[in-house]
């Protein structure tokens, strides 16, 4: 029991959950999206500032959620800042695979350091009902990149 729980609630997750990074809005955001998990009522807004070359100059989030979703959002902002939107999308795709156990093991698109961070969050795969907590911020980021206002875990 404890092994699974410790795998999910690793120190780094607890740290991000308690002290989320980039937990603010971006005043000159070029895009933002609202994410909601209708099952639990968790909500967040992801703000995005893209430069002319479609690179993520700044990214942040505000909202309420469990330790997993807040940590995931916080780590996500750290991971995608400075990357192009295509890189961010590739990262999301890979992360989604890791969380849902459809991992194809293809790490060619990711830096080792990124992979390690995503791995920390993927302990959620042992808790199927919690996968959406971890992926909601990423769905929301994706929506913001695509110019959509809303994202839900039910999509």
């Amino acid at each position, binding site marked *: *029991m*404890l092994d699974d*729980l410790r795998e999910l*609630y690793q120190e780094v997750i*607890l740290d991000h959950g308690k002290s989320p990074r980039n937990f603010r809005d971006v005043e000159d955001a070029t895009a933002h999206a609202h994410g909601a998990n209708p099952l*639990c*009522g968790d909500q967040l807004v992801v703000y995005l500032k893209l430069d002319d070359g479609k690179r993520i100059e700044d990214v942040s989030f505000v909202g*309420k959620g*469990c330790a997993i979703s807040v940590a995931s959002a916080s780590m996500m902002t750290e991971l995608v800042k400075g990357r192009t939107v295509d890189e961010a999308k590739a990262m999301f795709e890979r992360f989604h695979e890791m969380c849902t156990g459809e991992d194809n093991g293809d790490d060619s698109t990711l830096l080792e350091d990124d992979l390690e961070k995503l791995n920390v969050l993927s302990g959620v795969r042992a808790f199927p009902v919690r996968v959406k907590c971890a992926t909601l911020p990423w769905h929301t980021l994706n929506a913001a990149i695509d110019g959509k206002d809303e994202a839900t875990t039910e999509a």
Partner: protein
Amino acid sequence: MSDTAQAMPTANDTAYDVLSYRSDFPILSEQIYDKPLIFLDNAASAQKPQQVIDAVRYVYEHEYANVHRGVHYMSEKATEAYEGARVKVQRFINAAHDHEVIFTRNATEAVNMVAGTYGRRFLEPGDEIIISVMEHHANIVPWQMLRDEKGLVLKAVPVTDDGEFLLEDFKKLLTPRTKLVAITHTSNVLGTITPVAEIARLAHDAGAKVLFDGSQAAVHSVVDVQAIDCDFYVFTGHKLYGPSGVGVLYGKEELLNAMPPYLGGGEMISTVTLAESTWAELPNKFEAGTPMIAQAIGLGAAIDYVSAIGMDRIAAHEQDVLGYATQKLTSIPGLKIFGTAPSKAAVISFSMENIHPHDIATIIDRAGVACRAGHHCAQPLMDRMGVPAMTRASFGLYNTRADADALVEALEFTQEFLG
């Protein structure tokens, strides 16, 4: 002398043999993560005693056919059992007639039925419906849909910080335009028991009809629809230790007769020509198509089961566990209980400082404790209480003080674990 006399058990006051009742529920012997299951999610759905499981199995093995149709033996047996279940429900809620009991899919469908028939036929633009802020979505959304369709006004009675129904505010919301009052009998989140008889009297004085959502009340207390004098009463079978897929709409005979049917089809007609149809008598008018035969019979078995124990004794036992659990939980630092009305059922919703309900539910689950976390289909109430979600422990007839101890221990572990 008097002390001794009081201690002597009477016929109606024999010890509540919770261990014996527990042994009636096979699932309670399951181990999860190598730990005994501590099931505290009864307000979402309760477990089933062997008697109910056997009753459903018996139908399919010995007396199954479609009801109200065949002249053959099996159809007669099935019809007898199905209609027998209706009479059991009638007695359980003390309805005046068995045909005032309509079997539905669940409580949600029962509310929708009233909105879609009574509401559509008898409410006019500008008419008002009153609900409360502590309603389950099932008693909010159908009225919002009806409001939007008919141009009605929907008002909500507030609650105090303790979760008490504000009767004085309710009185102020009543106007000559109030046509329907739809209120929960017992909150699925706060456990608050509302003053239903008083609400019904005030609603009737204002010329309005009244519906009570008894999904929780029918499980935790004795319900008497005639004493309450409500026009409609709804509840669901699966929370009452019966099968899922069956619920009940009680309606006063004259109202059900005046209402148009909900669904059209077989079983609900008297005659059908290609030009037109006439409706069957109650209750068939509202039971179009083949009904939930085995589930209704299973609900009858569940009612037999709780009635044999006694709803009053179940309520007393649950109150004991509720009081004990409340006291224990209160001793946990940073834990806040939502819903502390003097009159409340065995439901405890709470929050813990700096720990999200979903994290609580995940961690205590690994200790074998099943609780619900989330908005409990009552988002307006979450807004009222200023939280996005809560953790809820809800107790049933088989829960014990030891279950409350296990919950408290698991919560203390959660605090330690997330430190």
